[in-house]
């Protein structure tokens, strides 16, 4: 077959996603996640505003343990800082060993985040059938955020392992995308903490 082409273009790059597609898709996930978070926010505000049967937050039902809740926020913030450093190191083409160290630090922060949040949920100390809808929404919201933290931690682990084993060097798009995801969930967690702790 001839390579003759009506447009005169005979050689064309293959269209493929790469980093642009990854970052775009990651932001799409954040957009969809926003709908999920807004649905939970709607439930929180709606049930709180109506306080049906005075069962929004009955007396005797406490709030999540303050200190543990703050620690559960501190580790994600450390993760954000570490991932920011990873992203900067990758984009400035720093040494691979420096990137590896920062990646491990970020991963450690994500593991501790998950562990502390599980411990926090274990300490809620309420039974859902009698604790009012405040406890229902809080438990579900913390569970959703825990699942999201674990999901991003798994993604980070795959990047760490690929980088450490040399099978897949960390690229700037991946570093940026995971930084954005972790920052987003951390931001939501802080907002949820403020809401649950102080707007009950």
């Amino acid at each position, binding site marked *: 077959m*001839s*390579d*003759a*082409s*009506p*447009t005169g*273009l*005979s*050689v*064309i*790059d*293959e*269209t*493929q*996603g790469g980093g*642009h*597609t990854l970052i*775009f*898709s990651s932001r*799409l996930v954040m*957009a*969809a*996640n926003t*709908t*999920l978070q807004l*649905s*939970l926010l*709607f*439930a929180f505000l*709606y*049930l709180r505003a109506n*306080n*049906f*049967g005075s*069962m929004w937050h*009955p007396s005797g039902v406490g709030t999540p343990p303050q200190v543990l809740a703050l620690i559960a926020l501190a580790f994600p913030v450390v993760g954000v800082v570490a991932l920011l450093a990873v992203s900067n190191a990758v984009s400035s083409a720093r040494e691979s060993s420096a990137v590896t160290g920062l990646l491990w630090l970020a991963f450690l922060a994500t593991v501790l985040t998950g562990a502390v949040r599980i411990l926090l949920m274990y300490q*809620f100390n*309420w*039974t*859902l*059938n*009698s604790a*009012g*809808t*405040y406890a*229902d*929404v809080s*438990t*579900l919201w913390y569970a*959703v955020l825990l699942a999201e933290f674990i999901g991003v931690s*798994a993604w980070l*682990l*795959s990047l*760490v*392992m*690929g980088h*450490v*084993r040399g*099978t*897949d060097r960390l690229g700037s798009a991946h570093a940026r995308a995971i930084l954005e995801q972790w920052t987003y969930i951390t931001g939501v967690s802080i907002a949820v903490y403020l809401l649950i702790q102080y707007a009950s």
Partner: protein
Amino acid sequence: MDVVSTARPLMSARPTLARRLNEWGLLLGLIGAVIGFIAGYALGSGAISNFYGGGGEPTSLGSDPGILLGYAMSALGFLTGMGFLNYPIGRLLGAKRPTEEDNAYLHGEGGGLGRYFRMTTDHKVIGMQYLVMILAFLFIGGLGAMFIRTELLTPVPSVANAQSYLTLVGLHSTLMIFMASAAIMGPFANYFLPIMIGTRNMAFPRLEAMTFWLLPPAGLILLSTVFLGGFTTGWTGYAPLADQNVLGMDSYLMGFALIGLSIGLAGMNMIATIMTMRAPGMALSRMPVFVWSVLVTSFLGALAAPALIAAVLMEMFSRTYQATFFIPAGGGSPYLWENLFWFFGHPEVYIFMVPAFGLVMEMLPAFARKPLWGRRVGIGGMVGVGVLSFVVWQHHLFVSGIAPSLRPFYMFSTEMISVPTGIIYLVALGTLWRAHTRFSTPMLFIFAFFFNFLIGGFTGVFLSDVPSDFTLHASYFVQAHFHYTIMGGEVFALMGAIVYYLPKMTGRTMDIRLLRFQFWAVFITFNGTFISLIAVGIMGMTRRVISYAAYLQPLNDSATIFAYGLGLSMALFLGILIWEVVIKQRVAAFNPWESLGVEWQVPTPVPTFNFDRMPVSWSLPDNYDTGKPAADFGPTVPALSGAEHE
């Protein structure tokens, strides 16, 4: 510019262990599902249910935590057996990325019929998998409709009792809603989207495959409700009835959760593909109108499905841990479910319809032999429908107790939807104006689509008006309206698209005379059935109720007789399809409709990786004034060679 080779490696003669296992993917998936269910059931019935004072009252069939976790883990086990976790686990362990050869294998290169029964990343195979599965589930849902109509031949219960009738109605409607959400997006967007925008595959091919393979577990989990006592809520799953239902309700919840996940993930994958992987020259303004409809629908799916998932999670929490999200005595409210469900549910209706709009506007120019008139306006119409669909959901709550001050806004916003929809009608009329229209079989389905949807739209106006909605709410008028839009609209577009695209997807075609007979049979019986039901609705017959007043029997019998005809004519369509494509294998012309669309310029069967080299888009895809094809493929198949038309 450097030369980029797009040639693909040939498969090595010796398959690896992973590939050998992949060949048995479906069987392994089923084994994984059984093991997953047993493990999940044991875990859910035991330790997990003890948190937060949950667990509920176990019955002889099990407990809610056991059933729900069993379902969740059976779906996970199915996907694991199919091989979907191989890649992410490999990445977690830092394994090497799959080679080009591995990817080519997974894409189905060199695979025969077996690739349709395993995890395959070729978007064309996935499109065909969707088509077959949707037709199969539509058939099952259709059988349910026949049972319902049989029961309604008499005003008093005759075949079923009230409980099993309600379960039957719920199963029919939920299954049909599941399938309708993927009826056009599944087969046609997956198959044609990459070809239409000039790329080799979706942005995330494994994810694309997973969105398909989530549907069989969802459908089977839903159907398994018959072993758990069924559910009495219908497809809307309203609380607090859902809290009071037996274990069969868990099937509904898990089925809907899986469907919501599939819709959301598929939407994000398609948006990413369209926005970042278009061929050179394929500006947004040049994108085929069907691709535009897929883009709008994908945004609806990606942004609406999370609200459904939130609602379903709340209901699962309620059934497993006795949370009281929807129970007023515990501080909850049934309105919370209604709001979240319909925030998803109304855009969901346009997840059905917008791709149908796109498909008919895509097919129309090929038969009118004219470019689509007012193309940009038509695209704007679809975008308008999509945007407005997010601000109308409370019209579903007019009767159940929405604050009166909110009613005018939602009445107005709902009625506003008729404007962009009307624009799409105008675009169709403008395209047909002074056209030398070819009345081929797909064109008949397109006409029927517009006719039926017009009735669906007119009846919808009465339901968006607060006063008339108070009278007609929960009657057969609503049911008939919904069927006019979804069956009369989407399913007629689906049948037209199957006839239109079958030559490209399979290289086969169907008998035109039989199809024309089938078209008139389905068109007449459909309208006979649902005009009867509009009438009984106006006369006050309530839906979802097994018995009715005796004076409504003649119209009900009329509806049932027409419905039997409708069922037979739909079965005839399936019969023709199977006979002509699978058994007789009637060979189709290369481009039987003489279409100028990009998808018709590639060879049939479409090569595994779609193109020899990447195409360059250089004009609109419906340039019928000049007859110029939409893209330059380099050494390509001439646009109209071998064309034959009816």
